[in-house]
């Protein structure tokens, strides 16, 4: 992945006429190049606008009052209605949803990385009967439709008394994050040199000590990539909590916002809802802009393998 020049300014509109024709160069490719250049810039700018416009529109709308939202969707707000934001945060329970999401994702992410790296290390570095079978059991989980398992899973979780609990949701998130995590980290551990671990072992370190003190630090880049992948996946997760987490007090962000939208039919606080939407969008977008190289690496790593 090579996106180093993050500070490069936005592309200007193509200026074709400054390119004074020179004698000597082959005329045909040059002309084609120019037309193509203008054309490609045009298309690229158009798509960039189409991506950014809905997001900017949401931010703008979150500062308008309800009347203006429905009356004139494109006009600028008459004044900045910051009360939308405070209302969403307190009355619409956005603060609870944030807290629940942070708890669930925090617990799941740590659990996924610890358990995933343990399993991946063993599968990557040790020969034992059943190794391949367990590996494919994990990896196969990536292509199966999760919804099929969710029907019985609801009752499994219910029978264990874990339905509508934060820790129950954490355990399920970890279980469903393991396929990709194990797949990715197994490949990663295989690329690490084995000599260091062997030296540590000869010096008397136990297997688990070798893992935690030697291998985990060496695997840090891989752990960061897969960690970002899981963080975004778990933060944005919608299907699992919709099925397994129906208690209004335990809702995570995505669920809470959808419920909020459904209930607006009666309450009619659309401006508060938009403030909630933007509130949920901004932290992730900000984190992406700051860590964009790592995020892109983490998210595309899987598909490239």
């Amino acid at each position, binding site marked *: *992945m*090579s*996106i180093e020049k993050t500070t*490069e300014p936005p*592309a*200007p509109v193509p200026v074709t006429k400054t390119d004074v024709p020179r004698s000597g160069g082959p005329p045909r490719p040059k002309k*084609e*190049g120019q037309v*193509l250049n203008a*054309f490609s*810039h045009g298309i*690229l700018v158009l798509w*960039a606008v*189409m*991506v*950014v416009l*809905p997001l900017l*529109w*949401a931010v703008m709308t979150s500062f308008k009052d309800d009347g203006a939202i429905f009356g004139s*969707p494109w006009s600028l707000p008459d004044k900045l209605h910051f009360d939308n934001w405070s209302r969403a945060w307190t009355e619409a329970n956005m603060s609870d949803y944030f807290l629940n999401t942070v708890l669930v994702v925090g617990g799941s992410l740590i659990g996924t990385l610890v*358990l995933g790296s*343990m*399993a991946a290390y*063993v*599968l990557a570095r040790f020969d*034992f009967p059943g190794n391949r079978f*367990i590996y494919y*059991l994990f990896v196969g*989980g990536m*292509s*199966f*439709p999760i*919804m*099929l*398992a*969710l*029907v*019985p899973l*609801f009752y*499994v*979780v219910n029978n264990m008394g874990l339905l509508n609990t934060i820790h129950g949701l954490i355990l*399920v998130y*970890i*279980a*469903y994050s393991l*396929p990709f995590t194990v797949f990715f980290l197994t490949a990663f551990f295989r690329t690490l040199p084995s000599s260091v671990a062997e030296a540590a072992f000869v010096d008397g370190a136990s297997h688990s000590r070798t893992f935690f003190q030697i291998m985990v630090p060496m695997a840090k880049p891989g752990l960061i990539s897969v960690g970002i992948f899981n963080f975004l996946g778990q*933060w*944005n997760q*919608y299907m699992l909590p919709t*099925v397994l987490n129906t208690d209004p007090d335990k809702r995570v962000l995505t669920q809470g916002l959808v419920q909020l939208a459904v209930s607006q039919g009666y309450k009619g606080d659309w401006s508060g809802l938009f403030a909630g939407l933007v509130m*949920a969008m901004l932290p*992730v*977008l900000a984190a992406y802009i700051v860590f*964009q190289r790592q*995020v*892109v690496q983490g*998210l*595309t790593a899987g*598909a*490239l393998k």
Partner: protein
Amino acid sequence: MQHGKYRFIVGFLALPLGLYALFVVWPFIQSIYYSFTDWTGLSPEFKMVGLDNYRRMLDDEIFWKSLQHSLMFAVVLPLVTIGLALFFAFMINVGGRKRRGGPVISGVRGSSFYKIVYFFPQVLSIAIVALLFAFAYNPDSGAINSFLRGIGLDGVQPLWLGDPDLALWCVMAVLVWSTVGFFVVLFSAGMASIPADLYEAALLDGAGRATTFFRITLPLLWDTVQSGWVYMGILALGAESFAVVQIMTTGPGGPDYSTTVMVLYVYQKAFRDGQAAYATTIGVALLVVTLAFAALVMRLGRRERLEY
């Protein structure tokens, strides 16, 4: 290295494997078993009914609609998304103007800016994206129709999600919007690793950009395109289509079941209608479709691997 090896292996695998078996593998096996019962999900009692659920499914008109829509998601979405993404990625990486003394092939100016912006939707939750577009599609006060009125197209005011003929396309457009950026970045990385002398040689031989794309870029990128295709198809059959259809369309499932998809139908049968066994039957059908799709793409796309 042998000392305590097996104790260590068991100790390290027990917890992850146990959790995975309990919450993923076991429910999968159970649901295939349940598809042969009359379990409602509401009471613990059930009895075996053989293939009754499967017979019922074949006569279920809504099932066939959901299957049809799911297949459209799996075929149309990757086609459009990957097509657009290839086009954008080619423009970004190869569409640049030739500068004096520069490389023969170069990216447009600000290529990294485009890659950053295009990737925005990918980091947002599909649920939030769906909510946002549900507003934009609102026929009376939504941003799209209001925009159309603004540029003088007062006559063109579609109902969007309320129109049975349009609703499915509206939903698919949202998924395209949110996933194109991911593939642009993915393909850009692949294109960046194609050596420049291949392009130079092609240009010297008089190849245009289109020829360059189809004869050099696409073949060398084929592996990435193919795995991206499978990845996108699995998403489009599963979690992503569930979120957009459930959140955006009325019902949910759209006017006259015009947007219902298999994954949503499973959810509704199990958790709304109390027909858990029948839901798992549809789930098994979804599993078959997903595996068949993946196998088909891998088979159709099989080519000789090109080394460079």
